[in-house]
């Protein structure tokens, strides 16, 4: 019987052949903690033992509340800095940007690895062929202490996307369409394997957008079989890996098929990510704030797609537009290629790399009754501020077109 990618990686990490449904204790290759979930994980670690299991396998950074936006946040940062120093682990501190972007772009994640992060969007790293999943602070604390963690080997759903995307339709539209189709609960505890011709032709940035949102349909992880594109991406980062990994033909999985050419720009309406409709259904809707950024869509490719529409245009009066590149690297690319000029010329605010308004805990918070349009991944009640605010999710191009028009707009008309 053949195995899925998820089964292969967990078999390798558990040291025996396992199949979906098995409980395993698996060895962790890399663990990531950030400013919000880190303190509790560290507390748990020290309840169990007095040292990190392997200091070279733990990576820390601050991205959710940076630079510290409150005394409580500053205290968390202080404690974690002390921890990193004591243990001798790599700490990017506030300098590099959003955790998931940084982990992949710095080459900390390799195909075939088992990676955990104390953050639900850790599934993003599947874009380079790893089994990566978000865990809570106690799980993280136990992993930091022992290097091991228990898992139930997940079943796999293969999402096969074939064909070519139409103009101004992007990976974000694909993943929102899929989530709208299967629902917020549609892939609970499943490994979501993204494949097909469309995904094969995607760069790593767009694969990250797909994998990032696997958790929004309940997925344990999102994953794309590594290939030539993965190899080139990792070579640029001077790291190597197994690029032959893939699910066997006869592996057990459910397959769902989609046709990219039939897809249109979509938005997820408040207050649930699977509340997905074509953008044409909500054209002309009032907005107060547009946010382009986050681990879903804050990369150079996303900023470029938005800037293409914004070039020579201005953000409509009455609308605030906030652009937050996902990392320092992506910021610099955008700066050197003139994208930042385009944004600031248009009247957008460009902020330093971090999570920004995505989780409503830092800046760019929505007030009661306000409407936000966001390229991030969640629109739950209160996610970006007031519980009486509403958030629509969309691609960077839809966000830019809407910022120009001052209301939700179809990017194909620009």
């Amino acid at each position, binding site marked *: 019987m053949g195995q899925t990618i998820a089964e292969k990686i967990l078999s390798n990490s558990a040291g025996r052949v396992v199949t979906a449904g098995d409980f395993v204790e698996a060895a962790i290759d890399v663990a990531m903690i950030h400013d*919000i979930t880190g303190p509790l994980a560290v507390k748990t670690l020290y309840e169990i033992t007095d040292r990190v299991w392997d200091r070279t396998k733990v990576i820390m950074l601050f991205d959710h509340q940076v630079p510290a936006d*409150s005394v409580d946040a500053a205290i*968390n940062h202080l404690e974690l800095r002390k921890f990193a120093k004591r243990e001798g682990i790599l700490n990017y501190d506030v300098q590099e940007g959003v955790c998931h972007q940084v982990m992949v772009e710095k080459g900390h994640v390799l195909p075939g690895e088992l990676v955990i992060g104390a953050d639900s969007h850790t599934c993003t790293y599947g874009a380079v062929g790893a089994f990566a999943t978000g865990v809570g602070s106690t*799980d993280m604390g136990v992993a930091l202490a022992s290097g091991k963690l228990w898992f139930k080997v997940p079943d796999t759903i293969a999402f096969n996307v074939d064909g070519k995307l139409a103009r101004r339709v992007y990976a974000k539209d694909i993943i929102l369409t899929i989530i709208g189709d299967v629902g*917020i609960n549609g892939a609970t505890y499943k490994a979501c394997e993204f494949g097909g011709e469309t995904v094969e032709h995607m760069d790593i940035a767009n694969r990250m957008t797909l994998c990032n949102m696997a958790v929004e349909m309940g997925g*344990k992880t999102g994953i794309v079989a590594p290939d030539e594109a993965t190899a080139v991406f990792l070579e640029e980062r001077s790291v190597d890996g197994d690029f032959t990994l893939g699910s066997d033909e006869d592996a057990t999985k459910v397959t769902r098929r989609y046709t990219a050419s039939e897809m249109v720009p979509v938005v997820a309406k408040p207050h649930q990510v699977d509340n997905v409709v074509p953008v044409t259904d909500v054209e002309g809707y009032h907005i107060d704030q547009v946010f382009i950024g986050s681990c879903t869509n804050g990369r150079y490719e996303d900023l470029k797609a938005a800037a293409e529409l914004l070039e020579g245009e201005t953000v409509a009066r009455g609308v605030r537009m906030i652009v937050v590149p996902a990392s320092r690297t992506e910021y610099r690319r955008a700066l050197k290629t003139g994208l930042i000029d385009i944004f600031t010329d248009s009247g957008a605010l460009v902020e330093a790399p971090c999570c920004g308004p995505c989780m409503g805990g830092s800046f760019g918070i929505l007030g009661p009754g306000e409407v936000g349009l966001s390229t991030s991944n969640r629109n739950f*009640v209160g996610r970006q501020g007031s519980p009486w605010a509403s958030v629509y999710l969309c691609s960077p191009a839809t966000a830019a077109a809407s910022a120009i028009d001052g209301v939700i707009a179809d990017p194909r008309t620009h």
Partner: protein
Amino acid sequence: MTRSKAHITGRVWKFGDNVDTDAIIPGKYLVLNSSQDLAKHAFENVRPNFASQVIKGDIVVAGENFGCGSSREHAPLALKDNVGIVIARSFARIFFRNAIDIGLPVVECDTTEIEDGDILHVDLEKGKIYNETQKKEYTISPFPAFIRNIIEAGGLVPYIKNRAQLKSREARELETD
């Protein structure tokens, strides 16, 4: 399993489907790390009177996919001090893991008939829930043995510690053999 852990009696706070972690504890409170501080803001946006009116041992009952969203352990932690058990038709997996890991009991059961304010008695040993208000009885889906062991130990940390002690005892015994 101690008696107090296996038997839980309390009043129901009923919620719907897809209660997400932002609803359980809003993002702005994630700078807080203690269960007492977090409990003050539990369900603040969706049931503003919850934190002030919840009585120790009360039961949270919900529909499908309870705890979807972020990996924040602050969510089960915000409930741990006051909530005796969370009963839902199904749970989002990270929340489910986190709850078990910190020793907050969670069980899956068809909750359609249970109503806000009902008094429930949960017997984890027998795998039964008695609805004392409605005079009805429901059966709980059993957990795999692996998870039962963690729950019985009181969470993942005590479980790991017990095992480590067991191992070092075995090692000592081997040495003295």
